[in-house]
């Protein structure tokens, strides 16, 4: 009898909890990406008809070849919440120069002095700074929207597909 009572109470609590939850759907581009919700893998996208409690939650989406996404959200008490994540691709870019004695810096933190190097760059704009003998001799923004090859000449950057 006591066990039945506990079972009934548990079912009731579960029902109350479910009724307070918000319907969740998650879609990503690209598809079939593992979705981590508050550190727990809830499956591969697209996710439909899952449930989430109202409140603060953290989504983490990681896929090789794309920039990872970490997204904090305050889920409002509502009927449903639909999330669409568009992941930023990472392109491999070849960077080449014929100039001698140059040091390159990208986005203020990544340095190299090889005349020919392959870089994995997130799609979008990157800030390139060129040093020679510890002096800045050039600054420019490079835009990456596909795999490219950059040929750097002083004051001139030529990109080829």
């Amino acid at each position, binding site marked *: 009898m006591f066990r039945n009572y506990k079972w009934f109470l548990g079912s009731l609590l579960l029902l109350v909890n479910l*009724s307070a939850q918000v*319907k969740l759907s998650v879609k990503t581009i690209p598809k079939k990406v593992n979705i981590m919700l508050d550190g727990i893998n809830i499956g591969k996208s697209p996710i439909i008809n899952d449930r989430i409690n109202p409140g603060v939650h953290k989504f983490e989406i990681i896929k090789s070849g794309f920039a990872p996404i970490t997204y904090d959200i305050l889920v409002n*008490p*509502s*009927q449903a919440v639909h999330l*669409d994540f*568009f*992941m930023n691709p990472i392109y491999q870019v070849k960077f*080449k120069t014929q100039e001698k004695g140059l040091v390159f810096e990208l986005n203020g933190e990544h340095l190299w002095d090889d005349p020919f190097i392959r870089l*994995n760059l997130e799609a979008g704009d990157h800030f390139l700074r060129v040093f020679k003998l510890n002096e800045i001799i050039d600054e420019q923004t490079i835009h990456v929207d596909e795999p490219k090859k950059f040929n750097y000449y002083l004051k001139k950057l030529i990109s080829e597909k």
Partner: protein
Amino acid sequence: MLKRTFNWFLHIGGILTLIMFMSGCSLLKGPLYPDVIYNNRQPLISVTYEYGEIEIKLPLNYIGVVPEIISFEVYAHGDTANPIISILQEAPRVFFVYLPQGVLDIHNKSNIIKIIPQDTNFRPVNVRFKGIRFGRIVLPPKSIQMGQLIVNGKVFLNKDETPLGGVDVSIQNFDNVIKETTTNDSGFYQLSVPGEYKYAQHLRLVAGNNMIFKPFKQKLDFSQTLKMRYNIGMGPNKAMEDPIYLTNRESVHFREQPDIGSETLFLLGAGESISVTRVTPGEYYGSIEIEVGSKKMVQLDGWVNRTDVFLLDLNNVFKKESGNVSEL
């Protein structure tokens, strides 16, 4: 010599191939920068919420008269100062209201719909209910009726103002008894009838049907009010002196002279009081009280047959259960 040169090239070629294998293709493709370089571009994220709707359905029953316009006010979380929504509309059979999700208290019955008919004859009605997050709520039907018409007061003996308990009091429309009660030990009574009788033309208050006195009858007019008070005096007035006799039947002749054939001044109903001052073998001479408008009473002298009256005993003023025969 040629063979040695060939072997030397073969060795050199082998070593170069080995170096190529060991260093991968980086000699051809260039070295790979060890880290992925992010530009911290904000990813495109779309968040779409779907909010549910709360539909509230409240059937209304109108008892008797239907008010023309009703104001509906919906309150949540016990806050009766700030309505979520106010709707003024013609009296509907079913009241519908749509609310956004999350506005109602879903844990307690602290949400209220105030139904306020725009007619002072109706009283506002409150409906308390427990909310839901979204979806439909069908509330039990609520009755709307005019305010009750109330008449109350005390019944007492005119002679000495003693409260009379156990007196039948009723409200009648024509001769139909709508509501009846009996006075308590303090002589108090209260009767209420539905508001639909507010404009009834033939509504009257009747008291004392179970008494030996002539019943008290008063026309009731609720057109200006919902509540009235009538204190009802039963029996002969203080001004009438003892001995007092009461008529024991309807249509008792009250004559100017004791002779047969003399002029009948009034035909008295059962229970009318006569203050007797002179007695003959067959008749009593005395005075009766007559209302001459605006509650003014005058006394009039005359004669009645002794067989048509009986002596009033103030200790026993109720009729016997068996019939109209008074206890003497």
